C-alpha cells in the first residue's frame, strides 16, 4: 500500500508507521474520538503536574505508534517554534502582581509567567504527540471515511480527501516552477527582483490550482459526481478496539485524576 514516491519533503505523504504499529490495527473512528477527547481534556488541565502526566502518557503512545524518530523530531520542532514565541513573551507579562524571579534590565521575569509558559508547552506537546500517535497510524483516506461514518459534514470530508490528493500535485508543480526559475539563475533573496519572482511563483501556483480545480470538477461531473466522494473502506469494531478504548479510559482517568482538585 505504501507505494509513495520520493516526495520526502511533502508533509501529506501516506502515513508512516502503518501496519508496523499495534495502533494501526485500531478502528479509525475510535482513534478520532479519543484524539478529540484527549485534546479537550488536556487543554483543560490547569497544573504542571497534571500536564507532565499527560505528556508522559502521550510519549508512551507515540512509542507504541513506532513513529520514526527523525520525522517526529522535525514535527515537534515545528510545533515548538510556536511555543518559543510564548517563551519570549509570557515570562515578562505578569509584572505587577507576580512573584519576581529575576530581572533582565527593565523586564521582570515572574514565577506566574514561567509557570504558564511551561504549562502551555507541556500541554501543547502532549496533544500533538497523542494526535500523531492516534491519527498518524491510519491512512489519510481511512480517516476521511471514518470521519464520514462519524457524521462529519460531507464538505469537510471531501475537502480533506481532495487536500490529501492534490497537495502532492501542487507541491510537485511548485518544485517544477522553482526548478525552472533556478534554471534561469533565480536565487532566493530580498531584492526587489527576487520578491517579484516569489510573488509571481505564488500567484501562478494559485492560478494553476484554480484552473486545475476546475478541470478536476469537470472530470468528476463526467463521472456523475453528485456531492459525495466515495471511499471503499469498511469499519468493524474488534477486540483490539475494545482493548484500545479501555486503555485510553485508564489514561484519561490517570491524567484527569492527577489534575483533580476537590
Amino acid at each position, binding site marked *: *500500500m*505504501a*507505494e*509513495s*514516491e520520493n516526495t520526502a519533503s511533502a508533509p501529506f505523504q*501516506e502515513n508512516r508507521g502503518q501496519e508496523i504499529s499495534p495502533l494501526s490495527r485500531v478502528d479509525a473512528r475510535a482513534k478520532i474520538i479519543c484524539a478529540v477527547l484527549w485534546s479537550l481534556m488536556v487543554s483543560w488541565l490547569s497544573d504542571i503536574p497534571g500536564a507532565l502526566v499527560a505528556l508522559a502518557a502521550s510519549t508512551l503512545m507515540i512509542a507504541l505508534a513506532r513513529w520514526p524518530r527523525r520525522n517526529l523530531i522535525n514535527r515537534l520542532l515545528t510545533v515548538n517554534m510556536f511555543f518559543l514565541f510564548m517563551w519570549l513573551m509570557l515570562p515578562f507579562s505578569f509584572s505587577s502582581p507576580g512573584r519576581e524571579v529575576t530581572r533582565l534590565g527593565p523586564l521582570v521575569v515572574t514565577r506566574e509567567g514561567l509557570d504558564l509558559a511551561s504549562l502551555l508547552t507541556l500541554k501543547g506537546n502532549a496533544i500533538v504527540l497523542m494526535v500523531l500517535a492516534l491519527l498518524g497510524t491510519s*491512512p*489519510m*483516506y481511512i480517516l*476521511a471515511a471514518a470521519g464520514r461514518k462519524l457524521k462529519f459534514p460531507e464538505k469537510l470530508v471531501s475537502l480533506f*480527501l*481532495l487536500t*490529501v*490528493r*492534490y497537495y*502532492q*500535485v501542487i507541491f510537485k508543480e511548485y518544485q517544477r516552477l522553482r526548478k525552472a526559475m533556478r534554471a534561469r539563475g533565480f536565487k532566493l533573496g530580498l531584492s526587489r527582483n527576487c520578491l517579484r519572482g516569489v510573488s509571481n511563483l505564488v500567484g501562478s501556483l494559485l492560478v494553476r490550482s484554480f484552473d*486545475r480545480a476546475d*478541470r*478536476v470538477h*469537470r*472530470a*468528476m*461531473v*463526467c*463521472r*456523475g*459526481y*453528485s456531492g459525495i*466522494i*466515495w*471511499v*471503499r473502506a469498511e469499519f468493524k469494531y474488534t477486540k483490539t478496539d475494545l482493548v484500545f478504548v479501555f486503555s485510553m479510559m485508564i489514561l484519561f482517568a490517570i491524567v484527569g485524576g492527577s489534575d483533580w482538585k476537590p
Partner: protein
Amino acid sequence: METLISIRNLTFAYDRREIFKDFSFEFQAGQRTGLVGSNGSGKSTLLQLIMGLLKPSAGEIELFGKLCRSENDFREARLQIGFVFQDANDQLFCPTVGDDLAFGPLNMGKTMAEADAMVDETLELLNLSSFKERVTYGLSDGEKKLVAMGTALAMKPKALILDEPTTCLDEEACDRIAKVLMDCGLPYLVVAHDRDFLDRVVTNAIRLKDGQIVPEPLRAPNARTGNQAA
C-alpha cells in the same frame, strides 16, 4: 447505424473569440474517429460541449437520440460516455486506484459490492489487477493514463471520448493505450497530435479548421513508413 452524437447549427464563443458558428457534426455507433487540428482550433472545446461542460450560445446537441438542453439531460447522457481527460491528474482524484475506479459506478447508484466487482473486471481488462490498492499519486504517468481510461471503462459506457491520450507518454505506454482502445469494442472519438498513434487506432479522421470540419485522410501503414523515411 445509430447516431450517438449529433450536433446541429451550434455556435460557441469564449468571450468575443468565436470558436464555432453554425457548426454541425455527427458521430455514429461503430465509428472510431480521430480528431485533429492545430492548437486552439477548438478540439477540446468541442469535446467539452458534447459532454455539456460548456454551454453553446445557440444550436442543438443530441446524445443517444435524446436532445440535451439542461444539466439534468446531460447528467444522464454523461454516464454513457467515458471521457478521458488530457491530464490524468485531473481525472484521478481518489486516494487509491480502486476508489477511483469505483467512483463512477457508485455515482450510477451501484452498491459497494457491485462497484467492487466492476472495478475488478476493469482492472483485469487493463492487466492492472495488482493495482487496486495502489496509491494513485505514486503511479507513473503511463500507469496513471491507463487507470484514467479504466475510470471511464468501469462505467461500462457506450462510447469513449479521449482528449490527447498519449501526451508525454513513452512508446511502451502508447502501445498499451492503443491496445486497450482497439480491444475495448466501443466506438470512440479521440483527439491526438501523435499521428502514428492516431493512424493506428482510428478508422477515419476529421480535421477542425476555422470552426468547420474537413475530412482528413489517414495514412496507410506502409505509406507512413515512407513518410518517415522522407
